[in-house]
């Protein structure tokens, strides 16, 4: 069993209920897409699964353990087996792509190896191969601030491919790409999951991508699971109910690009 959520709820510090009574069981090797209107709780659900947030109620089981019952050392080892793909990958602007990708295995490497890798990339071939699967191997030695939003998302995916986790969690992984590239990139992700027999959960705002690439679809609305069906059983009515009153033309909730970092130069 890869994931089991029992009666999980999440209340933010400001008292807003982001998730309520979530029941979800995902077995090993399954691939499923989470869809739903913006603000439904997709991101919160993924952050709970990535152990970035602690659920305020209910039971959360990941890869056969309960992360919040573990000691912090054991939780750290568990996290090395989870891979989270962020919608806007938090990569330092001046870091080079090769370093950003190789950072995926920091949880598996001893500290000395991580420090040495900062001075001299220890596995550039591994990073290159991960990037090549996403067609951006030529950016290997570029700096992250020289990449476009879509290229950055692919670097974030390459980091998780390089990490080789047992559970891949993806939060809107292709939101900044054009439809053809998005479809191709999702194909790479699902192929990776299939080839290694690992579990893949992705939240997507493009319903057609979800239906085309994932055998199981979970609809989320207002912090609750609206439906949980095989993709061929998802009806137009179910989708309509899921997105009711939602502006169809609403732009994807891609967060704005971070403000350019300004270095203060004191005058002497």
């Amino acid at each position, binding site marked *: 069993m890869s994931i089991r959520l029992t009666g999980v709820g999440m209340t933010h510090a400001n008292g807003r209920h982001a998730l309520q009574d979530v029941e979800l069981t995902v077995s090993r090797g399954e691939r499923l897409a989470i869809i739903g209107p913006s603000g439904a709780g997709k991101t919160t659900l993924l952050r709970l699964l*990535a*152990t*970035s947030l602690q659920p305020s109620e209910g039971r959360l089981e990941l890869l056969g353990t309960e992360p919040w019952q573990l000691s912090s050392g054991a939780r*750290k*080892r*568990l*996290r*090395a*087996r*989870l*891979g*989270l793909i*962020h919608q806007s*990958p*938090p*990569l*330092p*602007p*001046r*870091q080079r792509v090769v*370093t950003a990708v190789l*950072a*995926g295995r*920091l*949880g*598996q490497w001893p*500290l000395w190896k*991580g*420090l040495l890798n*900062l001075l001299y990339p220890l596995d550039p071939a591994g990073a290159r191969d991960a990037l090549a699967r996403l067609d951006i191997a030529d950016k290997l030695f570029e700096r992250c601030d020289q990449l476009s939003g879509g290229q950055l998302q692919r670097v974030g995916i390459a980091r*998780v491919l390089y*990490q080789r*986790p047992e559970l891949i969690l993806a939060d809107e992984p292709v939101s900044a790409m054009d439809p053809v590239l998005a479809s191709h990139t999702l194909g790479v992700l699902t192929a990776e999951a299939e080839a290694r027999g690992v579990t893949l959960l992705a939240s997507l705002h493009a319903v057609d991508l979800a239906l085309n690439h994932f055998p199981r679809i979970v609809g989320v609305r207002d912090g609750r699971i609206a439906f949980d069906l095989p993709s061929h059983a998802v009806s137009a009515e179910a989708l309509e109910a899921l997105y009711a009153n939602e502006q169809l033309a609403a732009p994807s909730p891609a967060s704005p690009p*971070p403000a350019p*970092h300004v*270095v*203060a*130069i*004191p005058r*002497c």
Partner: protein
Amino acid sequence: MKRTLNYALLVAILLAVVASFAGLGLDFSGLTSTRSLSLMADYAAGFFPADFSAAHLAAIGRASLETLAMSALGTLLAALLGLLLALPAAGRFGRIGMALARLLLNALRSIPELVWAALMVLAAGLGPNAGTLALALHTAGVLGRLFAEALENTPAEPAEAIRLSGGGRIAAFVYGTLPGVWPQLIAYMLYRWENNIRMASVLGFVGAGGLGQMLYVSLSLFQQAQAATVILAMLLLVLVVDALSGWARQRWVSH
């Protein structure tokens, strides 16, 4: 309301200036009376021509290198110590650590370099070692405060992402935080180096080596010609360091 307060503040500043002049009983007559002017002119004339003899230049060259080394190593040492103190001062080790680190940084910063130098001469003996330590201690206070500010302003998400994939605290810091603040740290270090070269050239006044010691000795012995060369060397050293740090800033900070 805000306007009146601002005017009151300006008036207060003017009053402070007037009170300063009055309270000090400044005597600028020395700068106007012909007798003292001619005395000053005589004294100033002693500086020309400057002494460019080979032996003196060799001594100045060595003292300049000593001063340069003091300023550079003092800044480097200060950056290391400052970073060590900036981590708790930015609140990474709890509230008590933060309060203690800030207190220590303020204490280091509040004591001027020359006073540190006088103390270090007592503790470590005469010579450039005392000067280097003095610069390092004062600058660590200044840089630690600036570094802590930079650490607080840097985004936390990259480090958080490393921790979520199982990286430890140190790995998250060097992969997630350091690349973001690095240029800012370099900019602050270069700025302090430009400051410290000025300071390093005078620490010798209290016996901490370098050009300052030469200047102090030659002025005490009324050897103005030799002093003039030392002052020229200080000027040159400051210009060289300004140029070097400007180049380094171009290369590593703005780029």
